[in-house]
């Protein structure tokens, strides 16, 4: 990734889905992150399935993020793939508040950002053929913008 000159965002999928291999996945992310040479890089996005919100790993994940922050400053973003946008935001915000209370996020310049996106349905509808592609409601769009 050292050749990418305008890379702004690195998005990592399935990092926290399987906690048993989180150490290995963290090493993969750390290795990829350390090769970023883009001068405009600004954010690390952790893509989250909504069922994993309550199982947010604390020590391993945030220790890894702390090490990554020492390599390069970044803005932390959690992207939750869910249909229940409000519920997911509320739950993740509560989880992050408790983590921040423990001091695990004190290395970040700004609090983590929470974004949401619609998930793919399942492997039998891989292209979302039967899912509406209409944009979300106005309030949802505005909340995403804010």
């Amino acid at each position, binding site marked *: *990734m050292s050749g990418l000159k305008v890379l702004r965002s690195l998005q990592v*999928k399935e990092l926290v889905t399987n906690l048993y291999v989180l150490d290995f996945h963290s090493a993969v992310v750390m290795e990829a992150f350390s090769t970023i040479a883009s001068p405009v890089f600004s954010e690390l996005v952790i893509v989250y399935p909504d069922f994993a919100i309550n199982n947010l790993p604390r020590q391993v994940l945030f220790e890894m993020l702390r090490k990554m922050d020492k390599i390069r400053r970044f803005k932390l973003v959690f992207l939750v793939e869910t249909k229940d946008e409000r519920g997911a935001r509320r739950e993740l915000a509560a989880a992050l508040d408790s983590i921040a209370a423990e001091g695990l996020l004190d290395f970040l310049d700004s609090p983590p950002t929470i974004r949401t996106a619609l998930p793919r349905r399942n492997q039998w509808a891989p*292209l979302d053929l*039967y899912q509406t592609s209409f944009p979300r409601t106005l309030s949802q769009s505005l909340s995403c913008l804010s």
Partner: protein
Amino acid sequence: MDRIFSMVMVAASAWAFAIVWALRCCLWTRIRPVNPTFLSRPPRQRNVPGNRECRSLNTAHVLNIRYHRYPLVHMDGSDSYAVPDVGRSLSTRVATVWHRGKAKTIHLLNRTVLRAWATRKSTSSLPYEIVEMIIAHCNDLRTLRAFSLVCRSWYPAAAQRLHHTLTLGFSRRRLEPLYELGLLPLVKELRVGQEYWLSRWFTPQGLTHHFSALANVHTLKIENLEIHRFMPDIERYFGHFSPTVRSIALYNPYCTPRKLSYFLSLFPNLDDVEVQLKYILSQDTTSDSGLVPFSVPKLRGRLVLSHFAWAETWTHLIDVCGGLRFRHMDLGGGPCCAPLLLKACAETLESLRFDVREGSLSKYLCVDPSADSNS
């Protein structure tokens, strides 16, 4: 004799009175009282207490106002409500008849103007742009159907939204009624779903003349597309999509890697590409040599790959386009393509998404493309 004459006269008078009364009743029912000042009032002032037929703004309701409960404007300009005939003075009656006749005359003269006025007031209370913005944020089909039935000015905005996406499941049956109604040009996104274990209908034989009416499609999503069956006249079947299509998603296409790039080159304005290659049931063994690309697609948007390992597709496209310019990339699978794609999009790639479960992907992500090219 005088007695008989007087009786005849009384009878004749009675008959004459009855006829006059009947004519009067007919006249009152035909010429319904409409006050010209009443028509020009704002809607809320039109409502007369106790009169159920004065609630609407519609012209037809205005004309159906009962005579015994309508507002009168006297000659001196003072307002009052008309009351039944009992006990009314002659001047009131004269004023009533005067205003009724005047109102009826104005109504007959300005019927078209009134109708246009009533229509305009009821439908254009909001600017069309505002209506369009409101409807554009509606994602419920039931609500959109209701919007389309509100009035003529709401219909175009709602119909565009309602027919934005056309999903053809197991056949093209849904296409024919839309074609008959002339709604196919409204379709912006076409999704073709066909299962691999069933007979596939999206073939050259299955593409009827209805598809030519899909002239404004900007997103194509096709499942199990057998590209090799459209060769070599693929432009004949997909050519009308070429100017407008900006996004393509293919799930499990049946073709060779080079034929896929040949198919993508059919769309010069193509920005977003999504290819998922979960399984290969039958390998395309037909020849793909000598395929000259149709155009140089832009490819400046998003690339999403899943289990896609055909590096030759991208090699061919890079040769055709002189490089790729994707700004967003999701490499969910197919790690062997990663170094090639990252190198091709090194100048433009702004966001990269990868799946950490692909262990070998990290190896490719950490490769220095310049070192790779030198070697």
